């Protein structure tokens, strides 16, 4: 379901650098982590040297004084313990840094999403946005936690081991340097081969899962059209391909991963033993040095294994990173305001002047819309689905930017008010009152911490939501499950009303707020609405004409145009579209027949 991303080496590096730039705010912690890393590495290097000293200076010559040996022994165990403790903190620190970096990245992406205009949400499925914020960042986390940490730690250890080797024996250390190009060669080869095979396997796996998912969804169709056998064999084919890709990976891992590194280890061992063997022809060799070298070799190869096993994660993280950055660079922003002073909406007069609008730049969904709603008046918008009612509200709420015409509030262009002012003074009630996970109180308050509990309860009382809320278990603290599924749509709407009233707006905007109401709450809703409208300018999209009969002005829209306007009585008298809609809703069969014929 994700689009495939092929990144060139350069793009990959760019993504990596951008990811790394997130480490900047953590400079101090990172420095600390590096100091810890340095210390533990020093510990790793020093320990074999202590054993070497013991073997060469004490054991071989048989010089076994108690005091220096006790000192040496205590030193050994002391370093061992301190090293283990430092190692713990070092490992934790690196992971912590990674987690904080990812958190920041997540917050950045989330904030970006919040700043985007509704236009972006129209063209992007919600699932894929969520995926950017959580799953992709999670993949990047894996890279920071395991890949980068492993690489840094392993790199340090390798470097330290080489330094120790050079201190012990320069010639042999130089000989051992030969191993490095061999290792690098194997690593590069592995990365090249495995990234291809690994990618192939991921792809097969996602094909497999897509096929399975689709089959499960369409199982009824498959069965009714008797295609079970064919689909089974198609699935079997993909499964086989996936198996083959899996086998290829096992083979590559078997050829180039652990077994290969162990083979190189054996060769390194041969070099060390031969060197000491040959040296011993002429001069005596200190046994402790042999011990130390062998010990270093033992430690040398594990980090290499670790590094190689993490390579595939790196690739995934880069791809995920590029997707995340694409979203971060998205420029479909929400409409901006051009604030001029601290204009305030005092009266709540709303005017549309010749507004035309198009979502896609091709087809106009609004054509020359003009009307005015005086303070305290109610203007109702009616019309068939797609007639443009919701678009008027979308523009008024500044969800979309418009270019032609002007919208005035209290005689001032809507663009000149601050965003805060607009959000505060224009209260929108949606057709689908979205409830969030939390309590009833949280849902009325939303995140507005200025509201006291009393104000919340007052708001609920005002819209008469208190009667049902108080009957709930825990009352205002009642838990709201996902989307408020346990409430009836009417109850959800009442909570949404309370939400709007609590914010005390000057202008009330109702987007089919009474469309999906069950009959039980219908009355409560109507009373609440009437109360809410008092003293406020109201722009209402009405599904049921009965709810807007007392509106001061009714606009009938058809295909983006206002085709009729007037109050209820005037419009009925016109015997036009409004009249027909009215008959339709009131189920007057006999009159219908007259109209049709």
């Amino acid at each position, binding site marked *: 379901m994700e689009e495939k991303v092929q990144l060139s080496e350069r793009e990959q590096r760019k993504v990596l650098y951008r990811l790394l730039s997130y480490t900047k705010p953590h400079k101090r912690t990172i420095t600390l982590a590096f100091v810890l890393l340095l210390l533990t590495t020093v510990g790793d290097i020093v320990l074999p040297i202590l054993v070497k000293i013991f073997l060469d200076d004490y*054991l071989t010559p048989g010089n076994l004084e108690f005091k220096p040996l006790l000192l040496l022994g205590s030193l050994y165990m002391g370093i061992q313990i301190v090293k283990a403790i430092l190692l713990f903190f070092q490992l934790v620190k690196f992971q912590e840094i990674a987690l904080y970096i990812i958190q920041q990245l997540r917050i950045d992406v989330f904030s970006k999403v919040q700043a985007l205009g509704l236009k972006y949400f129209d063209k992007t499925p919600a699932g894929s946005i969520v995926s950017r914020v959580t799953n992709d960042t999670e993949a990047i986390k894996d890279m920071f936690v395991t890949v980068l940490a492993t690489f840094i730690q392993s790199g340090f250890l390798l470097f330290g081991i080489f330094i120790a080797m050079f201190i012990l024996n320069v010639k042999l250390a130089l000989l051992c340097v030969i191993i490095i190009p061999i290792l690098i060669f194997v690593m590069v080869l592995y990365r090249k081969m495995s990234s291809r095979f690994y990618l192939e396997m991921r792809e097969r796996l996602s094909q497999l899962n897509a096929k399975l998912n*689709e089959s499960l969804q369409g199982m009824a169709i498959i069965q009714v059209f008797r295609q079970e056998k064919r689909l089974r064999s198609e699935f079997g084919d993909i499964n086989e391909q996936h198996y083959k890709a899996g086998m290829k990976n096992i083979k590559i891992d078997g050829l180039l991963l652990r077994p290969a590194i162990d083979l190189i280890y*054996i060769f390194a061992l041969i070099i060390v033993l031969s060197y000491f*063997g040959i040296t011993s022809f002429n001069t005596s060799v200190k046994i402790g040095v042999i011990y130390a070298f062998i010990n270093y070799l033992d430690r040398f190869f594990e980090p290499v294994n670790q590094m190689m096993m993490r390579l595939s994660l790196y690739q995934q993280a880069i791809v995920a990173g590029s997707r995340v950055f694409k979203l971060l660079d998205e420029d479909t922003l929400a409409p901006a305001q051009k604030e001029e002073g601290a204009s305030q909406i005092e009266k709540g007069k709303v005017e549309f002047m010749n507004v035309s609008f198009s979502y896609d730049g091709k087809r106009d969904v609004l054509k020359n819309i003009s009307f005015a709603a005086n303070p305290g008046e109610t203007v109702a918008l009616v019309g068939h689905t797609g007639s443009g009612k919701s678009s008027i509200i979308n523009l008024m709420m500044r969800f979309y930017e418009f270019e032609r015409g002007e919208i005035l509030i209290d005689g001032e262009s809507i663009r000149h008010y601050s965003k805060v002012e607009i959000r505060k003074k224009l209260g929108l009630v949606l057709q689908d009152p979205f409830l969030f996970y939390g309590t009833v109180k949280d849902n009325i308050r939303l995140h507005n911490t200025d509201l006291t509990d009393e104000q919340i309860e007052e708001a609920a009382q005002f819209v008469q939501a208190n009667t049902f809320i108080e009957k709930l278990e825990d009352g205002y603290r009642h838990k709201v499950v996902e989307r408020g599924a346990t409430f009836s749509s009417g109850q959800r709407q009442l909570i949404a009303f309370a*939400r709007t009233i609590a914010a005390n707006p000057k202008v009330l905007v109702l987007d089919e707020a009474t469309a999906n109401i069950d009959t039980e709450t219908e009355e409560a809703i109507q009373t609440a609405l009437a109360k809410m409208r008092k003293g406020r300018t109201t722009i209402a999209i009405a599904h049921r004409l009965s709810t807007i009969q007392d509106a001061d002005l009714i606009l009938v829209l058809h295909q983006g145009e206002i085709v009729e306007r007037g109050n209820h009585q005037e419009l009925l008298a016109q015997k036009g579209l409004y009249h027909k809609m009215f008959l339709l809703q009131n189920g007057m069969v006999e009159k219908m027949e007259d109209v049709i014929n």
Partner: protein
Amino acid sequence: MKVFLELGWFFKQEKKAYISGVFFLLVVAFLQLVPPKVIGIVADHINDGTVTKGLLAEWVVVLVAVGLATYILRYYWRIMIFGSSVKLSKILRNRLYHHFTKMSPAFYQKSRIGDLMAHATNDLQAIQQTAGAGVLTLVDSLSTGGFVILTMAFTISWKLTLICLIPLPFMAMLTSWFGTMLHRSFHKAQEAFSSLNDKTQESITGIKVIKTFGQEQEDIEDFRKQSDDVVQKNIVVAKIDSLYDPTISIIVGISFFLSIVFGAKYVLNGELTIGQLISFTTYLGLLIWPMLAFGWLFNIVERGRASYDRVAKLLGEKVEITDQKQATEMVPCGDVEYRIHEFAYPGELQPILKNIQFRLNKGETLGIVGKTGAGKTTLLKLLIREFEGYNGEILFGGAALQDYKLEKLREAIGYVPQDHFLFSATVAENIAFTNPSADCVEIELAAKLANIHEDILQFTDGYKTIVGERGVSLSGGQKQRISIARALLMDPELLVLDDSLSAVDAKTEEAILSALKENREGKTTIITSHRLSAIAHANLILVLEDGKIIERGTHEELMEQNGWYREMYLHQQLEELVEHGGH
């Protein structure tokens, strides 16, 4: 370990691979013992100054041989053991899929697709782990561990071995304990992550509300808090995870320390040579992995067993709708007759259909109308045997539906479901779903009948355009018409349209209906619809309400009756007018 018994059938089936794989593993475990030994011997010679060229060459040859042999064997046991485990997941995945294709809609009603997917992915993954890494850790930890300990005890010093082994069981215990803790805290971290996921999902679905109240900043703050929780829970994981290395390093360090201290004593006693001591410490290094592996083994096997149980249970689910023994191979043809007293969905008390009696003659069209939930779709689902267990019988061509093989029955029926589901494939492949070998003439004919041909030509790749979830998005009406073309391609004896014209406009509906009329002479059609214009031409119209037939007759008859049908018809006529701006 019970899961190994439960997987016995597979091990038996892959006997060869597993036996040779385990054998190679044992050989590798043995060969691993050689290099430390060689180190010890050479070190002793160096210490004594008795190294010769021949001796050195000899041991180098031994090392090279051992190295290469280990490399090759290691490669092969991976192929054998890991390869088999991948094969196991392939086999189980095919079985699951096969099973899924046999399960009836009742099964899909009670299980969520997400859960089924999880079984086919995560559970199979865990089982694969058990059959691969599980077998490896079991064999390897026992063999390597055993061999190394035996070698240390018998070729170097059993006393020193015992002393140095004392700390190691603690390592196995501690790491296994960490494993359990890690699993638990990881679970919590996953939960925190998933609630962050839910929070994001919620914010994005509710973005309009958030924007309405201008609470973007506050919502970001809330997100920050939740992501803090994720970080904190993950730090717990990180802390436990970070315990492993230091613990191992301390315990191994103690073992090393003991081996050097006591080893030195034995060297001075003359019980050991220095070279042997060096070998000994190298062997000690070889013991780390088996100890860790042993700790792992339990975690792997535990997870594998739980997963295998779930998959086995799923595969054990009974197939509900099957062929009767005496079922005929004939494809049904002829009149359709319903004689149903009552039907309720499995597990529900309230009957959804009551007293449904009617007869539809071959070649005629039946229209079924009624409100949502009246039972229209259910009535059709019984016909295609998606559900059974009704009181009464349904006859097709004079015989009960169960008298035909399921496959033959469905061969006679071209079904267009309400929720038009298209597969992620080309338009042509979707239309030719029942007959992938259909040529383009047939496909285009079906598309033309369904009035979608012109639309398809407008798509960027014409008939080769990919549609479905991962393809271009089509309008509801286009999807419906492709579904219709799909059913028409099989030129079925009985065509069933389940509210499949709801998203097309009146003109298109008319065109499709008249095309059907022309091309389906002598063949039977059933149409359910909300819009009465789609069934006004039917030979028989049934009006359903609450599962019962409340009105029946032709359009003309029903219009005279002055009941639900007539009222609805007028209502829809007026609606049509309003949609067109009142003209």
